C-alpha cells in the first residue's frame, strides 16, 4: 500500500546509495525543511480558504467563488496581493523588533511541527519528550506577539500584546494539565508511543469521563492559546482595531496571519494525536470486519481527517460566539478550567492506577 | 397641572415673568432671572420640570433668544422658557448643573451662536474645529469657502 513511510524509506535508501552518510543527513535535513515550508504554505492556503467558506456558510453567504473553480484559488490571489504589497515600517517603531516579530512567530510555529506524527511511521523527530517539547515551544509564540505589540509604537498594539501575554500565560496551565491526563494514561511523553497506546481505542473513549473532560478543556485552552475568537482579545477587532498587528502590512502581516493558522493546525494536530488517536484508524472492540475496513483507509487520511475536524470545531466556535472580556477570560481560566483540570488529573490518576480504563 | 395653573404657579415664583398661553405656555424671562428660576422649576414638587428635551437659540438679527423646552416626566406638563439676549455680548447662566443634557446642547449653542454660558464646566467647541471663526447659525454669517451658493 502506498504510504508516506515507504516514500521516506525509498528516498533514504536512494540517497544512501549515492552519497556519504553525513551528506545524506544534510540533504535529508534540507528536504525536510523544504517540505515543512511547503506544508506551511499549502496549509495556509487551505485553512484560510476553509475559514472563509465555513464562515460564509454559517453566515448564509456563499463565500469566495470568483477566483478559480468555486473560489479555490482565492487565497492564492490574496497571497499574491500580500506579496507584492509594500511592507511599511512606520516612523518611530523599534525596527529590529518590529521586523523580527513576524519571523519569530513563524519560527515558533515551525518548531512545533517536529514531533507530530503525520502518518504511520512518518514523523520528523520522534523525541522521547515530545509532549513536553510541544508545551514548551508553544509558549514561545507570546514573545513574538509581545515584540510586535511593544515595538509598533501604537497604543492599540501595546494593549493587544499585553492582553495576549496574560492570556497565553494563564491558558498554558490548562492546556498543560489536560495534556498531562493523557500522559498519565499512556504512561509516556513520546508521541509515537501515545499513538501506539491507542491502537485498541482512542483515549477520548477509553479514558471515561476524565479524558472527555480533559479533551473539552484542551479544546478551550487551544482556542485561547491560538488567540482565536471567542478569545481573540489580543486582536479584538471592534475594540483594538487589529490589536498587536495593527501596524503591520504586506508580507509581514501575512506571516502573522499564516502563523495564526499554522498554530491552529498544530494545536489541533496535537489534540488529534493525544485524544483522537493520531493516525490510528477507528477500531471498535472485536468487530474484526469493521476494523479491517478501517485499516484500509490510509493512516495519513485518518490523521488529517481528525485534525481538520478539530479545526472545523474551532472555526465553528469562532463564528458563533461573542468575545469575552479580559477579566472574564481570566475568570474562566482561574475559576473554572484550572480547578476542574486539577480535579480531573486526580481522577485520571486514580483511573490509571486502578486500571479502570479499557 | 393644566396650563392655566402652570401660568399662575409661575407668576407666584416670579411676578415679573410674562407668560403666553398656547399649546405650551411660553415664559419670557430676563437672563438675570434664569439662575433663580431654573432650579425652582426643577426642584419645586408641583412643577418638577426634570426633562430638558430641547435647548436652542434663535437669531432675530436684533437680539438672540435662548429657548428651553422643558417637560416633567412626573406631571407631563410642558413649558417653554425664552430669554432675550444681547446680540453683541450674549451671556446667560448655564443650566448644565441642573439638567446634565444641557452641557452638550450649550456647547453647541456656544459655537453656533456665540452665546457665553457662565459657569459652564467645559465650554469648548464641540462640533467645529477649534480655530473656527464666526458663528455659523447666525443670520449674518458668511463663509465664502464652505458655503455653496446655488
Amino acid at each position, binding site marked *: 500500500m502506498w504510504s508516506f513511510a515507504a516514500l521516506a524509506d525509498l528516498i533514504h535508501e536512494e540517497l544512501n546509495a549515492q552519497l556519504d552518510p553525513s551528506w545524506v543527513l544534510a540533504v535529508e535535513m534540507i528536504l525536510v525543511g523544504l517540505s515543512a515550508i511547503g506544508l506551511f504554505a499549502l496549509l495556509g492556503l487551505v485553512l484560510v480558504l476553509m475559514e472563509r467558506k465555513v464562515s460564509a*456558510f*454559517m453566515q448564509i453567504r456563499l463565500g469566495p467563488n470568483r477566483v478559480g473553480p468555486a473560489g479555490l484559488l482565492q487565497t492564492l490571489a490574496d497571497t499574491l496581493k500580500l506579496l507584492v504589497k509594500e511592507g511599511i515600517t512606520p516612523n518611530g517603531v523599534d525596527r529590529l523588533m518590529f521586523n523580527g516579530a513576524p519571523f519569530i512567530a513563524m519560527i515558533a510555529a515551525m518548531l512545533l511541527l517536529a514531533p507530530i506524527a503525520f502518518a504511520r511511521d512518518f514523523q520528523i523527530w520522534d523525541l522521547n519528550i515530545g509532549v513536553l517539547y510541544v508545551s514548551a515551544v508553544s509558549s514561545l509564540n507570546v514573545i513574538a506577539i509581545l515584540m510586535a505589540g511593544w515595538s509598533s509604537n501604537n497604543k492599540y498594539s501595546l494593549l493587544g500584546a499585553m492582553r495576549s501575554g496574560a492570556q497565553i500565560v494563564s491558558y498554558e496551565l490548562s492546556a498543560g494539565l489536560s495534556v498531562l491526563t493523557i500522559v498519565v494514561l499512556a504512561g509516556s511523553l513520546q508521541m509515537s508511543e501515545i499513538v501506539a497506546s491507542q491502537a485498541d481505542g482512542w483515549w477520548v473513549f477509553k479514558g471515561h469521563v476524565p479524558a472527555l473532560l480533559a479533551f473539552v478543556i484542551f479544546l478551550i485552552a487551544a482556542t485561547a492559546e491560538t488567540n482565536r475568537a471567542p478569545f481573540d482579545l489580543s486582536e479584538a477587532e471592534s475594540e483594538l482595531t487589529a490589536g498587536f498587528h495593527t501596524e503591520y502590512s504586506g508580507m509581514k502581516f501575512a506571516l502573522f496571519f499564516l502563523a495564526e493558522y499554522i498554530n491552529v493546525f498544530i494545536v489541533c494536530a496535537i489534540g488529534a494525536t493525544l485524544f483522537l488517536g493520531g493516525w490510528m484508524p477507528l477500531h471498535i472492540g472485536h468487530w474484526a470486519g469493521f476494523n479491517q475496513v478501517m485499516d484500509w483507509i490510509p493512516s495519513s487520511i485518518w490523521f488529517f481527517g481528525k485534525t481538520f475536524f478539530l479545526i472545523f470545531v474551532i472555526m465553528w466556535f469562532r463564528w*458563533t*460566539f461573542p468575545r469575552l472580556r479580559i477579566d472574564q477570560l481570566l475568570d474562566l481560566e482561574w475559576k473554572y478550567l484550572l480547578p476542574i483540570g486539577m480535579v480531573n488529573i486526580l481522577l485520571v490518576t486514580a483511573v490509571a492506577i486502578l486500571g479502570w480504563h479499557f | 397641572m393644566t396650563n392655566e395653573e402652570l401660568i399662575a404657579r409661575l407668576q407666584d415664583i416670579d411676578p415679573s415673568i410674562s407668560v403666553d398661553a398656547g399649546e405650551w405656555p411660553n415664559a419670557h424671562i430676563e437672563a438675570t432671572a434664569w439662575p433663580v428660576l431654573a432650579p425652582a422649576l426643577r426642584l419645586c414638587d408641583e412643577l418638577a420640570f426634570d426633562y430638558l428635551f430641547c435647548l436652542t437659540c434663535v437669531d432675530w438679527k436684533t437680539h438672540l433668544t435662548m429657548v428651553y423646552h422643558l417637560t416633567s416626566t412626573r406631571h407631563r406638563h410642558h413649558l417653554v422658557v425664552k430669554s432675550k439676549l444681547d446680540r453683541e455680548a450674549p451671556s446667560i447662566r448655564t443650566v448644565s448643573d441642573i439638567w446634565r443634557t444641557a452641557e452638550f446642547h450649550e456647547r453647541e449653542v456656544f459655537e453656533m451662536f456665540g452665546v457665553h454660558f457662565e459657569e459652564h464646566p467645559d465650554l469648548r467647541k464641540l462640533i467645529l474645529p477649534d480655530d473656527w471663526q464666526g458663528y455659523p447659525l447666525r443670520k449674518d454669517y458668511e463663509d465664502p469657502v464652505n458655503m455653496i451658493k446655488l
Partner: protein
Amino acid sequence: MFLKEYISDITGAVGSLLKGMRRTGYYFLHRGEAITQQYPDNRDHMGLPERFRGEVVMPHNEQNEHRCTGCTACELACPNGTIKVVTKFEVNAEGKRKKAVDRFIYHLELCTMCNLCIEACPTDAIKMAQHFEHSVYDRSQLTKILNRPESKLQDGVE
C-alpha cells in the same frame, strides 16, 4: 450547595453555547438558505421596481419630441440646485413667440433622488429611470443634458 450551584452554572452556560452552535451548524449544512445575490451576473433578471429612483430622464417619442415646456417648475422644486433649465424663445407656426426649453441641464452628482421635481412637473415631461450604475471616471460626465439635440415639444402639450 456551592458545588451544586457551580455545576449547574457550568451546564447552563455550556447548554446556551451549544444552542448557538446548533443554529450556526444548521446554516452550515443548509446552504440553500444563502441570501447572496451574485450581483453583476444577475443584472439581466434583477428587475428593479418601477418606482425605483435611479436618475431623472426625459422620455422622447419616435419623432424626437419631448413634453417639456420649459416652465422651470422642477428647477424651483429641487432642493439642491440639481436642475437648470435654459429657455429660449421660438417662433411657432402662427408666428407667435413662445418660451421653449433650450437645454435641460441635470447635475446627477448633486441629485438626491427625492422625486420632488417629478411631482412638480405639470406636463409629466420628466420621470425617474431605474438605471443605477452611475459611476464614471470624470465628474463632468455626470452633468447631463436631458433634451436631445434637435428635439421638439410634443404637440398639444401646454
